[in-house]
């Protein structure tokens, strides 16, 4: 269903569990998705929804005591879930690279950016220091850092936030990965810099033919840059669809609620904001049924919503999946309105 032929990265039934005093907490719960070459998948969700943990699980970077307890991860057709630690290290960086949210903490303050880039490049290739430095300069230029010859010997604190994020992107693409995972790459940046960074990522995706995962909470960025979207809530994907058909005609009440709760520049200024009732879910104390039921404007009190946790299933198309069995009610309400 989610698997398309020729996917560069495909994940099936991924599970990640953290032990806690209240028993094991499932932070990634049966997550499946696939990503084609040159495609951008946006993963949307709030803090604790499992969007970052899903990709740390894919890269096998889950911080202990967390553990990936199940699922298949296929990269370029080969199963990487069972690879040895050293084989996995080769995949990270050279195959799948990740760019994190905070560009200051992701760089080591006591080394120049050149040192740090060379370390990454030489760890993954047989290049000499001179070749590696040439590669570093080449990618710094590619991410439009002005005067890379001088910048390469700067320390992270000498660069602005936007420039640091460019350096991290340069490090991520230095090994020409097939998949780039960008985890909230612009949340810490100003809006005009955000636009520059995302334009850069879109440009690189096109030039290098990478598959890209854009983890974000900004629905505007999804509308602008993604080909497909997966919405996560309480560790699960609750809705996924192609952007062109599905975004804006959501078939899950959580996604609908997200749209109604944000102020939007493309709607009248006095639009009322409908807050989502209640508090974000506590993963250690999830309800037995649908995890969104306690906050849902639709399911509230319905017997089946409280008793059974619905699976992600096809709606009108098998490309648009929803974990709400009452998705038709949403469409009917829309048609009636």
């Amino acid at each position, binding site marked *: 269903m989610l698997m398309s032929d020729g996917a560069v990265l495909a994940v099936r039934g991924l599970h990640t569990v953290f032990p806690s005093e209240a028993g094991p907490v499932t932070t990634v719960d049966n997550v499946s998705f696939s990503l084609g070459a040159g495609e951008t998948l946006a993963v949307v969700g709030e803090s604790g929804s499992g969007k970052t943990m899903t990709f740390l699980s894919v890269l096998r970077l889950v911080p202990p005591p967390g553990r990936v307890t199940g699922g298949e991860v296929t990269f370029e057709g080969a199963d990487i879930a069972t690879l040895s630690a050293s084989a996995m290290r080769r995949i990270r960086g050279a195959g799948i690279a990740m760019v994190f949210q905070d560009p200051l903490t992701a760089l080591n303050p006591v080394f120049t950016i050149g040192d740090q880039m060379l370390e990454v490049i030489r760890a993954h290739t047989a290049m000499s220091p001179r070749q590696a430095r040439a590669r570093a300069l080449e990618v710094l230029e590619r991410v439009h850092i002005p005067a890379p010859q001088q910048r390469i010997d700067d320390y992270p604190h000498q660069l602005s936030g936007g420039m640091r994020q460019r350096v991290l992107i340069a490090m991520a693409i230095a090994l020409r990965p097939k998949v780039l995972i960008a985890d909230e790459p612009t949340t810490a940046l100003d809006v005009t810099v955000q636009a520059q960074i995302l334009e850069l990522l879109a440009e690189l995706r096109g030039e290098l033919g990478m598959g890209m995962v854009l983890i974000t909470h900004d629905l*505007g960025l999804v*509308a602008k840059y993604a080909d497909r979207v997966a919405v996560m809530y309480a560790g699960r994907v609750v809705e996924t669809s192609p952007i062109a058909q599905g975004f804006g005609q959501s078939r899950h009440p959580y996604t609908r609620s997200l749209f109604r709760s944000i102020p939007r*520049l493309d709607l009248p200024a006095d639009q009322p904001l409908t807050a989502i009732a209640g508090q974000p879910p506590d993963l250690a104390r999830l309800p037995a049924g649908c995890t969104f039921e306690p906050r849902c404007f639709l399911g509230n009190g319905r017997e089946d919503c409280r008793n059974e946790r619905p699976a992600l299933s096809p709606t009108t198309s098998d490309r648009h999946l929803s974990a709400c069995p009452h998705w038709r009610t949403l469409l009917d309400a829309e048609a009636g309105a």
Partner: protein
Amino acid sequence: MKPPADPRPNGGEPLLSVEGLSKTFQDRQLFSRFRGAGVRAVDSVSFSLDAGETLGVVGETGSGKSTLGRLVLRLVEPSAGRILFNGEDITALSQRRIRRMRQQVQMIFQDPYGSLDPRMSVGSIVAEPMIVHGLWHGGRDERVLEVMRQVGLQAEHRNRYPHEFSGGQRQRIGIARAMALQPKLLVLDEPVSALDVSIQAQIINLLRELQQQADLGFLFIAHDLAVVRHVSNRVAVMYLGEIVEIGPRDGLYASPMHPYTVSLLSAVPVPTVDRERGRDRVVLHGEIGSATDLPSGCRFHPRCYKARLKAASPGVETVESQGERLPSICVQHQPPPVDGGGGHVAICHFPERGEDRSQVAGRAVEFSKGAG
């Protein structure tokens, strides 16, 4: 240069009025004779704010918007200018009188984690301002519970500690603490930007309710242009310490005059696919400069698209600047205030209005065309 005038539409005594307010931070070096020129964090800022009104302040990192909020509260000392609260000049008040003033001017912080003492229960956090201000005469438990109820906290929460609450609930505690003294003015510094989107709406709606109940004035400082549009009556846009544009919300968002405002609005993506992908974007040159090394003339000229458009059009005198030809007026002269009517003012040599409005400006802020 004279700061842009800020004619108030309704007249009368404003709740807060700020005139030519400036703050220069001197960097203290070990050897004082090597002292630098200082950082002009806030430079000749003027505006006023009525009771019951929200003035939104937007700007990027380094624009001086947070320093402005702290100046109004007298948390940092102004270098020049005047602050009038209810008509009274509070610029030179003694520390003791400032404290009395702060009963009426309270602040809400961005970080609901760092701004609450982890060792104090919610009840004591809310009660503390009343004790500090000598308003605690026993039997004020009622007041604590009343304020907690007002912000949507339950009575049983009073004996719990901040770490037991989610981000949204913590922000409610911070709001309760600010409301305990029944202030007239709230300075809100990024009050919702650390919160998840589903919780942002709860807090925004709560703030609006509180404002209506008590006729509060809000100085709402944020970087999110959509949030600011939603909450504000008027909006001020700051760049490198200056207000470059100020005006009633609808006018400013529908027809921004300053190229920086246009650029900001153009950078915000909207969550409707056809509209978003059909829009034009203004590409800004470089990043925000530094207040330690201000550009000559107009502070925005090194990044401005309009200056570049103008430099290419006939009859505009240009000079060489950083390897580019730019209009000499932008590089050499402080821009004058331009009055767009109804209190809408921008400082720019080539404002985006009338026949001089560039095409890209029109398309970049056209949010509702497209899907229809």
